[in-house]
Each structure stands twice: as C-alpha cells, then as structure tokens.
C-alpha cells in the first residue's frame, strides 16, 4: 500500500513541464473593460462597422447578465476590470516564408515540439498558429484554397468573407447565450474561421495551436466552422501555456454549423497551466462550444482531452436539429493537485431519429475535484431519438472528489435514453494481477489508466492520439514507463 501511496504522490506531485515565457513585444490595450476598449479592439483589427455593432450589442447584454455560480467549482471573484482584453504580437510585415517568423515565436513552438516546418513537411497538417490572439502564420492555405476551403484567422474572414461571417456568427452561440459567451462576443480578439464548400472532403487535419502568452491577458478566441452540404472536416485544437502566477481568464467560443450530410470532427487537447501544487495561479478556462446539426444526416463529434487549467468549465454541445443527425462526445478529463473541472456536454434532440453518444472518463488525483455535468434533452418531436451516456470516474487519492450531475429530460415516449455512471479507484486486484506478471506497480497504474481512456483516445486523429498519451504520461508522471 505504501508503494501505491508513493506512486500516487509522484503522480500527483509532478510539475508542469511546459511552462516558459517567451518575450515577444506585445501591443497591449490598457486594463479594464468599457466601450472604449471594445472600440479600440475593433479599430486595431480594422473591423467594419457591423462587427463593432455586434460587439457593442454583446457588451450591453453582458453588463445585464450575472456571473453564473452553479458549477461545482470555487474560485475568487474575477475582477473583469483588471484584465487586459487585447494583446497582439507587434505586426512585422507580412511573412512570405516560415523563415521570417519571429525567431522567439519559432523557438516557442520548437519547445512545444511542434516545429512548423516539420509539421508542414512530415504530417501535412495546416497549422494556424495563434499566439496571444493574433494569427501569425497560416500554412497550407493555398492547397486548401484550390478545393475552395477557406481556412484563415477570424479577423481575415471578417475582412474577406463578411457575407459568411455575418450569416453564421452567433447562429449557434448567440451573444445572449451565457455570461462568458456574451463577454467573448464583445471582446474576442481573434480565432480561426473555416468554411468547407459543398461536397468537399477536407484532405488534411485542420489545426490551430493556442498559446496564452502575455501576462494578465485574457484570451478570447472565437472559432467558426461551417461545413456545407456533404462536406467533411476534422479540426484539431491543442493548447499549452507558460507558467504564470496570476490567474488568467480564457473565455472562448467555438461554433460549428453542419449542413445536410456534413460531418465535423473537433478534437481538443488542452494542457494549460493548472497552477502549482497549492492551487496558486493557473488558467480559468470558461468555454462555450456548440455545434448545430442543421440538416439531415449531419454529424458533429467532439473529442476532448483535458489535463490542464486551474478551472475548467466547458460543455461542448450538439443541437440535433436535422432528422437522422448524430452527435458524439468523447472526453477524458484529468485533474490533479488543486485543479477543478466541471465539464460535460449537452445533447439537444429536436429532429426525428437523432442519436447521440456520450463517453466521459474522469480521473482525479491530489486534492482536485472533477465533475461531469451533462444534459440530454429529448424534445417533443424527436421521434425515435436515441441516447447512450457513460460517465466513469477514477479516483487516485483519498482527498480528491469525483462527481456526476447528469440531467435527463425526456418528452417523447419513443425515445430511448440510457445513462450509466460508475466511480471507483484503480483496483487492487488489477494491480496485483500486473505485479504477478512482473509489471511494476508504476507501470500497472499507467497501463490501467491508459486502458481506461482508450475508448476516447481511439477517437482522436493519429497525430493527436500520440500527444494525448504523452500528456497523460506527464500527468501521471512516475507511473508510466
């Protein structure tokens, strides 16, 4: 048993491996939030009037809203006037090749192990690298453009494809949706925009690398993905952030709009700074992610591996409006030390014969709290809707908590809704079995936890699955060989 404790101690005691600060000159706005700041952001980005109007409307809405308190998390009150809402790396001419990239930025990426060149050459992934709110470089754009795929930064989309942005922005997550979505709509700095035209299957994984960089900067990303009829796209989002002592707020919005027969797969690996062992510092991750299956047979799939952030508050959802549409949610959430996670999904069944699957695996260690909170709503007209949910929690210590709060609302008798949840620790008999066969306890814990998450990792694209396993290995440091 003491061996076990030692391992768990090592597991939960490991430091954040990816913390570093790169010194890039940032062009920052003064702290605080008011109409002037919003005008400043909008002006900085050379935005048209309609965009500014949207921001101001959202800001007025936000002022009327109250900060939500229902999540199972505790944190000191956020002073929204003490946050810098805009920070961009100083513009340095348009880049013609990767060589022109700020060497520091490049080094940052190298440290993270995602050398742009290497990715460009070897894996064929187009990376829209976002450092502190402004897209620095988009690769592979030409190749995508040949197929009619638009993949660019959000601000570029506002300038070059205003008709698309106007039509779809806020159609899935309206600015009135919730407190943080309203905040994001008012102050969002940049993000990614993606449009896949009719019948096009995107030949490569689309990917954005998020980094939070300048101290005290809120990161307000906004991503919009539109898949037109019969289109397919797989989108990757991955995050690491440097070590900081001050809590940083991240309130992103991701919207996915899937037309008839379209499929979108959205995968996330999130490894922001979780704060130190005593809960000091760390990122507040309050994200609104939602997809709309607007047409028949549309499919949206969320896969997430959440290992970072001091507080995670995130519910990637799918609105199943089209008949026969499909929603999926696969999640691994690891919390350690003083981390708190309240995450899950919402599946809103509106159309006939819609189906959804939820697989959520929570792992808690240290003094962390890990909650699954999910909603499955079967509307009155959702004939033959089908849902299956499974939420498992694994506890790695006796001071952590694992919670499950599912909401199941069923208004149609033909629907079938199933929900299962279990909570347990790594079985002593399982470890004993491994020990017997010459596998050390350390390796056994890693093995069991990896096996436990396999169902979700299998959903990740190849490139990400590797990274996710690495991240899990780091989180479970000492137990994975």
């Amino acid at each position, binding site marked *: 048993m003491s061996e076990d404790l030692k391992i768990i101690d090592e597991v939960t005691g490991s430091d954040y491996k990816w913390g570093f600060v790169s010194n890039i000159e940032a062009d920052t706005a003064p702290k605080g939030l008011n109409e002037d700041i919003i005008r400043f952001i909008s002006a900085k980005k050379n935005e048209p009037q309609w965009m500014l109007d949207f921001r101001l409307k959202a800001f007025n809405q936000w002022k009327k809203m109250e900060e939500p308190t*229902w999540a199972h998390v505790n944190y000191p009150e956020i002073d929204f006037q003490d946050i810098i809402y805009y920070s961009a790396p100083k513009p340095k001419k348009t880049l013609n090749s990767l060589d022109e990239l700020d060497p520091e930025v490049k080094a940052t990426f190298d440290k993270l192990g995602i050398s742009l060149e290497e990715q460009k050459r070897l894996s064929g992934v187009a990376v829209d690298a976002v450092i502190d709110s402004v897209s620095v470089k988009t690769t592979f754009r030409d190749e995508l453009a040949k197929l009619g795929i638009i993949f660019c930064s959000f601000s570029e989309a506002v300038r070059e494809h205003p008709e698309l942005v106007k039509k779809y922005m806020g159609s899935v997550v309206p600015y009135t949706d919730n407190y943080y979505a309203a905040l994001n709509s008012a102050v969002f700095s940049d993000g990614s925009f993606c449009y896949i035209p009719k019948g096009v299957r995107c030949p490569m994984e689309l990917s954005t690398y998020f980094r939070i960089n300048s101290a005290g900067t809120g990161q307000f990303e906004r991503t919009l993905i539109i898949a037109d009829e019969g289109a397919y796209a797989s989108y990757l989002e991955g995050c690491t952030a440097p070590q900081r002592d001050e809590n940083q707020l991240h309130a992103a919005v991701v919207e996915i709009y899937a037309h008839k027969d379209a499929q979108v797969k959205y995968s996330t690996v999130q490894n922001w700074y979780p704060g130190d062992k005593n809960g000091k510092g760390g990122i507040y991750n309050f994200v609104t992610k939602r997809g709309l299956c607007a047409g028949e047979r549309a499919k949206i799939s969320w896969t997430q591996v959440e290992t970072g952030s001091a507080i995670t508050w995130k519910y990637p959802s799918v609105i199943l409006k089209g008949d026969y549409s499909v929603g999926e949610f696969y999640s691994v959430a690891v919390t350690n030390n003083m981390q708190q996670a309240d995450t899950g999904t919402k599946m809103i069944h509106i159309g006939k014969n819609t189906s959804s699957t939820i697989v959520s695996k929570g792992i808690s260690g240290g003094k962390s709290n890990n909650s699954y909170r999910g909603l499955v709503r*079967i509307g*009155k007209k959702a004939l033959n809707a089908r849902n299956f949910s499974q939420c498992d*929690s694994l*506890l*790695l*210590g*006796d*001071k*952590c*908590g*694992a*919670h*499950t*709060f*599912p*909401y*199941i*609302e*069923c*208004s*149609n*008798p*033909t*629907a*079938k*809704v*199933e*929900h*299962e*949840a*279990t*909570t*347990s*620790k790594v079985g002593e008999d399982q470890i004993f079995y491994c020990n017997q066969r010459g596998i050390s306890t350390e390796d056994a814990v890693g093995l069991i936890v990896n096996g436990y998450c396999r169902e979700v990792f299998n959903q990740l694209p190849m490139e990400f699955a590797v990274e996710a396993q690495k991240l899990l290995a780091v989180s479970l440091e000492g137990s994975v060989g």
Partner: protein
Amino acid sequence: MNTLTETISETEQHISFGNIASEKLTPERKLAIDTFNRSGFPSLKDEEWKYLDLSVLKNTPFNHQAPACTKLSLSDIEKYKVAGADAITLVFINGVYCPELSSQNRDSGFSIESVESELASRWLGKLAKADEPFIALNTAFHHGGLLIHINAEQEVKQTIHLLHFNDSRHEAVAAYPRNLVVAEKNSKVQLIATYHSLNNFTSLTNSVTEFFVGENAFVEYDVKQDENEKALQINYVYAQQKRDSVFDISTVTIGGKMVRNNLNIALTETGGTAHLNGLTVGGKNQTVDNHTLVDHASPHCESFQLYKNILDDNAHGIFNGKIFVRQDAQKTNAFQSSKNVLLSDDAVMNAKPQLEIYADDVKCSHGATTGQLDEEALFYFRSRGIGKKDALALLNYAFAGDVIEKINNDALKADLLKLLAQKLNTEIEFEI
C-alpha cells in the same frame, strides 16, 4: 426578477399565525415563520426545485391552522385500513392524532407520546432543519403529531399503520403532519404510512417525519400516496442511522395532483444499510417529484436506490437523486437506478441522478433509462392472443413489481396491486 419579492410579500400576506397570541408560540415556531417569510417559496430557479411548478400551491389561500375534523367515524375509515387485520392503526386528520379512531390494543414494545412533549424535544427538529421553506412551514404550524418510541431490544410484531387524512371538504386546508420515530438499539419495527384526502377544495399536505434508527435496529417504512386530483403533497422523510442499522423505505405514489417526496438518509456510523425504493404510476395532469439524498458519512455502509416511473397522459415525472460520499466513508457501496416508462406522447420525465464522491475506495454507480415498453415483448403477448391493453398492463405490472415486491406486508402489497390494475385500466388480477 420581481416574482421573488412578490412571493415574499404574498407569503407575508397569507402566512402568519393569525390571531394566536404570541406568548403561546414557542421560539422555534416564531423563528421558523421568520425564516420562511425571508426566503419565500422556492422557485424553478432553485436547483433543488428545478422542473417542479409550485404555482398552484403558491396561489391557493390555505388555512394553515385547520382543526382536526372528527366528523369521520370508524366505519368511514375502515376501507383505508390496508395494513392487514392485526395492524395497529394510528389515525391522523389534518396532521392531528385522533385516539378515538385509532387502535387501542397496542403491542408493549413501543409507546406513543405527543411530538410536542418534553421527551420528544430530544429528537424533534434535529434532522429536519427549518432552513428549508416547507420544513419551516411545518415547524411553524404542526400540531398533534406523535413520537413513536420503540424500546431497546424489542421487536414490534404488529405493523404500525399511520393513516393520514387531509380534510379539505369545507375549505382549502394545509395540513402539517409531524411525526417522530425513534427505534432504540436492537429493535425492529415496520411502519406503513398512507395518505388520503377528502376534497372539495385544493389541499396541501406538508408532512415531515424524522427517524432515529439506533444501533443494530431495523426499520421498514412503506408509504402509499393515494390522494385525489385536488391534493398537493410535500413530504419530507429524514433518517439517521447508527451502527449496523437497516432502514428500508418504499414510496408508492398513485394519486395526487402534485407530489414531492424528499428523502434524506444519513449513514452516520459504520455498517449501516439503506434501501430506497420508489414507484410512481402517474396519469392525467399529475406531477410526481422524488428527491433523494443518501449521505455516506461513515465507512462500510451500503445504500441501494431503485426508482421507477410509469407515466401516462400529461403526467410529469421527476427524479433527482444524490449519493454523497464523504472523505471518511471508505469502502462504501452505493447504487442508484432510475427507470422510467413513458406511455403517452405528452408525458415528460426529467431525471437527474447524481454522484458526489470524496472518498477513493468506493464502489458507486448510477443508471437512468427512459423509454417505452419493449415492442417485441408486446408482440409476444399479442401473438398469443392477449389484447394490447392487457399486454401493456402485464408488462407495466412486471415493471412495477420490482418495487412492490420489496414491501414486506402482504395486505399492503395486495392493495397496491389492486390500485395498480385500476390505474392501468385492466381487469387482470395481479398477484405477487
């Protein structure tokens, strides 16, 4: 936003002690009404009251201090005695114990006493705290309730039947039954509570029952709620279990316009076991809301929850169950299952099974399903010449049987099956 303040002013208008002289009131009662008038009724925005619409309750001007109506005779209540011939019946009208209607021959293993007696004050309100609005109301207005005290080392052989009536024939009555059951060390008892209403007006039964289950004691409590379609019921049951004790509760809800059950079980010492079973057979415009909280505060305890809903017409079923495992409660086994059948297009089921766990060496699980009865099973019956209505009834009976089976009283079981057949509109005579 304004509704909350309106509600408060409304309650201040409606809910007060009227013309009772202030010096007659205990400080607890005064404090409780103040607490209530500060908080007002819960709204849909309260997480614990989500999905349950209390507007009828809020808008009915109830008489909170109705006297016990003794216009019932022994023959009137005969048909309500469902706990078997040798059961001890204790009759409560509007929450007030009526000795002249109750059984006189009593088992020596237990004694009864007023809940307002000095003896009862050792336990009264120790579990049901007045910070909940409805408990506050009950604390303020209850009178005539009983303390049922089971002596140590005693097995009460006869079933104790608490027969509750709400008499709202002449005015809208809010009845506040308040009872206390104390089962001392090594004792054993079975209690049955049935709730009925006599209505011309809307009635409210706001019942609070506290159980103190001593070391190695065994208490079974079966509840049948069969009020009519003008009746509202808010029912709180609290139980505190000592070492190696067993507390089993089965709640069967058949009647009532709106029923809300709150079960709070605290396993305070090691080795305790709790079974919570619930069956709702809802139709018309019924709303039935079952809330459970099992608090595992000690190691080596077990709890099992099984809740089933059969919902027809416009019925609305709600289940909100929570397993709470504290940090010290290692080696806990806790299970919870919510199974629901919707029979009509307009029936709605909202389930919220929750786990909140702070100990690592535990086995906890919950499951929830909502759907309709198996088409193939239905086909099987029909291919053997059994009509659709009867086939459905049989399947529902099998579904409901799981819960009824848990009740250890044959007379009550038979009565429930008869009610079930009635409610499912079938001639088939069910038996277990």
